[in-house]
């Protein structure tokens, strides 16, 4: 290929000439062999500047372009699109930062000028090793697999299903609805009508775009965003297992939570003392409208004990304070003769409406008792005695019945499913989001999303919100009729150098590398690779090339740095 490099030095108005002798730079560059033309221009990023560059590329029939100007963060994209418009592959371009990292940080003009020369020379040598990279397009499937038929899964499925997008929902039990369906009532400002959940289930069941699989579990998931294949196992009534394979574009994990087993710690007295219940058992009592002791008598006093399992699990489950308040309200409203004592460590009421709910409970005469630490729960004859510590002093209360609020813990299949989907868990054993702050429903595996309590304890609203968030993500990445364009600057394996040691597989956070077991070499899935180059750094045989950041390209920069 004929090499005609065009080098353009942007003055950025007075910014660069103030600190760099631009004419000298132009002169130095002109003497380089591969350079066809060197010009300075007042402001390359202006419309005039872009027009100028376009004309230059076309007129001079340039094969490579180097622009020395500002940081690539500012205008790399600008000039790459000028190249594209002028018919030059945009990757045959190099932007050299002589403003931020040269003119603006080196006060001595002579020093700054020779630094600029060094940088531009490196840019010229580098660009000669550039390859005309091309965008690829991949066909996609827009259907979605939702794992878990609880409220989160239902909401995601309802949001996504439509004429152009089928949703498969799989649920391991016999029916949809999950934990939320068993609640006596949802919290007041979270919607008091349970039939809303029932309605959602009905809506889903009647949708022609939803395929519901109960008694089902995922056995295997392979592929990547837009092109997944999943194997589903369905247990039939006679003990047999039916296996089927489906093709989908994305997966939503909505597997919910379990409750902390109170028997794990004797201080809660659960299983030891009669009339110590966990929160679900008390929900059942509310549902049956009978608040009764084992003896069949009505209790005169009930203690609501917060934070069971918080210390053991190492986190606060966020929702327990509020549902304990719900119990307190229920008892005061329906059984005013029962005395209610609520034993609280910290009130965790982070929603704007929560505190007024607390104040109302206080007005209804609930006795709130602050404890720093629960010490013991034991049965003393007919009563239950709860011992606790506050301000370094021991206290105790005696009641007829104790309701203990257990922490929310990861559901039992979490580890297995993480393994199947190749996605990580966090330190608490829940699924780990890609970024706790900025990407709360994504995983390192693009196309696999998380929602609801599978991610950690949360209330119904937050779960619903996350389900809509996963649908937002899927709607915007898997658009019917569109193809996806993966990152161009990805890693590439040179098969003849690859020894098949699989080191790269273990360092890739995104699971973009697999082994071709027939050839015994690693293979990069360009649709998944994000181009960080970690695998290149890890490869002992130098078999991996990270496009646009290859060894020869970087070595040229090193050599010029040392010239």
């Amino acid at each position: 290929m004929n090499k005609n490099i065009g080098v353009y030095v942007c003055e950025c108005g007075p910014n660069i000439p103030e600190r760099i002798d631009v004419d000298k730079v132009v002169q130095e560059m002109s003497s380089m062999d591969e350079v066809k033309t060197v010009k300075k221009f007042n402001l390359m990023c202006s419309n005039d500047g872009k027009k100028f560059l376009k004309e230059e590329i076309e007129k001079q029939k340039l094969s490579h372009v180097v622009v020395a100007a500002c940081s690539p963060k500012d205008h790399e994209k600008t000039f790459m699109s000028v190249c594209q418009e002028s018919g030059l592959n945009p990757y045959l371009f190099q932007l050299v930062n002589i403003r931020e990292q040269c003119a603006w940080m080196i006060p001595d003009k002579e020093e700054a000028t020779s630094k600029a020369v060094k940088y531009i020379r490196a840019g010229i040598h580098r660009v000669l090793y550039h390859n005309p990279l091309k965008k690829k397009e991949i066909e996609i499937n827009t259907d979605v697999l939702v794992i878990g038929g609880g409220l989160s899964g239902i909401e995601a499925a309802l949001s996504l299903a439509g004429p152009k997008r089928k949703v498969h929902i799989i649920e391991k039990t016999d029916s949809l609805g999950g934990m939320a369906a068993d609640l006596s009532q949802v919290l007041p400002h979270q919607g008091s009508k349970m039939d809303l959940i029932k309605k959602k289930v009905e809506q889903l069941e009647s949708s022609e775009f939803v395929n519901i699989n109960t008694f089902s579990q995922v056995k295997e998931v392979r592929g990547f965003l837009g092109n997944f294949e999943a194997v589903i196992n369905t247990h039939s009534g006679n003990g047999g297992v039916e296996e089927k394979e489906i093709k989908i574009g994305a997966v939503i994990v909505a597997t919910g939570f379990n409750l902390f087993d109170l028997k794990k710690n004797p201080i809660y007295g659960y299983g030891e003392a009669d009339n110590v219940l966990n929160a679900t058992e008390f929900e059942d009592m509310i549902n049956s409208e009978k608040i009764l002791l084992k003896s069949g008598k009505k209790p005169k006093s009930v203690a609501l004990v917060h934070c069971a399992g918080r210390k053991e699990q190492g986190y606060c489950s966020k929702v327990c304070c509020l549902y304990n308040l719900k119990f307190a309200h229920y008892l005061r409203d329906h059984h005013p003769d029962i005395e209610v004592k609520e034993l609280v460590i910290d009130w965790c009421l982070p929603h704007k409406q929560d505190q007024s709910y607390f104040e109302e409970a206080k007005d209804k005469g609930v006795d709130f008792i602050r404890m720093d630490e629960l010490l013991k729960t034991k049965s003393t004859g007919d009563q239950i005695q709860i011992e606790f510590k506050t301000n370094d002093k021991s206290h105790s209360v005696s009641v007829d019945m104790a309701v203990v609020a257990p922490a929310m813990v990861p559901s039992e299949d979490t580890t297995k499913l993480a393994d199947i989907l190749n996605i990580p868990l966090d330190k608490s054993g829940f699924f780990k989001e890609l970024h706790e702050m900025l990407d709360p429903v994504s995983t390192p595996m693009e196309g696999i999303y998380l929602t609801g309590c599978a991610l950690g304890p949360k209330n119904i609203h937050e779960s619903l919100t996350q389900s809509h968030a996963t649908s937002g993500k899927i709607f915007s990445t898997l658009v019917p009729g569109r193809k996806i364009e993966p990152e161009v600057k990805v890693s590439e394996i040179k098969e003849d150098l690859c020894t098949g040691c699989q080191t790269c597989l273990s360092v890739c956070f995104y699971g973009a590398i697999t082994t071709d077991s027939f050839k015994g070499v690693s293979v990069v899935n360009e649709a998944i690779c994000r181009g960080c180059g970690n695998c290149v750094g890890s490869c002992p045989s130098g078999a991996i090339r990270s496009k646009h950041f290859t060894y020869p390209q970087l070595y040229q920069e090193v050599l010029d740095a040392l010239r």
Partner: protein
Amino acid sequence: MEQQNVLVIGAGVAGMEASLILAEAGLNVHLVEKESLIGGQTIKFEEVYPNMECATCMIAPQQQDVLQNDRINVSLLSKVQSVEGSAGNFKVQVKKKARYVSLINCIGCGACYEPCPVSLGNAFEERMSQKKAIAVACPGALPNAPAIDPEACLRLNGKKKDCSACQEACGFDAIDFSQKDETVELNVGAIIVATGFDQFDVSTLPQYGYGKHPNVYTAMEFERLYAQNGPTEGELTLRQDKPIKSVGIIHCVGRKQEGYCSGVCCMYSMKFAYFIKDKVPDADIHEFHTDLCIPGKSHQKFYNELKDKGVHFCRFEDIKVSGQNGNLQVRSTNSDGKEKSTDTDMVILSPALTPPPDAEILAKSLGIPQDSTGFFSTQNQKLNPIDSEKEGIYVIGCAEGPKDISESVSQAEAAAGRVLSFLQ
């Protein structure tokens, strides 16, 4: 929906995320922001809990994406004036204030600041530093171009009509005094409200000594004091200069008055302890809290870590700050009525998050109600937590109520999901 356009009000972390998702799906987004820069409150933080990530590093790529996205039309210094119509076809009037600096011509070199004769308190820095009448809010602001404050600028406020110091210094013809405020009409199918939060005004509660004792800081002041790109470049230099040996951090300021727990203050207050331990390892740090509200799955670990580092935690029922000659005294009373006095050199107040002052006006223009707390209300009862009472208008982030970045981003993505689900 007749119009494939969406209006997003507020270019903080939630507004930006919603805009990016909608744009990626192929919709056109009008992103309206009242300030001269995008990024909202998050860019004021040096690091965010619980992983102590650099907020700038986290947000900057997102800001760049927003500014470079052809489908997102960003209007800065702009406010929504009125909204007519209904879901699928809203007509929105947006008032856009003149910046007096051309975003096309300006390259952000900053040559215009120096010659400007007017200095004023920089609101972005909680007025802890001065800026010129033409300035960017902070180094690294995006878009990287200043704006002229028309009330401070001598030429624009009429005090010195021939001043053209900045214009003369500008080598790019970027300063344009002829720019006028303008009103733009937009046609959109849906509206996403992401107008964020304000802080409870701590000076209304004299018992905390704010304003009286110089070394009593608000949380936001402390965020900027600690920030590398802030007024002291990250040095913990006190207003009344003295070495920091002991610090009191007081939680729940304004909780009682506002009637709700803001959910984020416990964590960021603990983040402050982390910051101070980092810069002044020997400092005694006292966290004065009521309820520790730390509901994230990784948050309690953060708390345990701080306890291990020797941060003192003290639960109070009542608290008061007094002082003399720069020495501050925090007197806290516990649930048994026992009083304790702690000497400190610095006090940081963690105030409640409140609705922004213009929430009421916006609520009226949009025709959506506020709840008793002043935040916008949503259809919580119907299990539609981000849908406002009006179809086609969604409320996300702290506009809906206090919450952390993670929840705000979830809601932003959810709002995009709602809009896109509606369109399919």
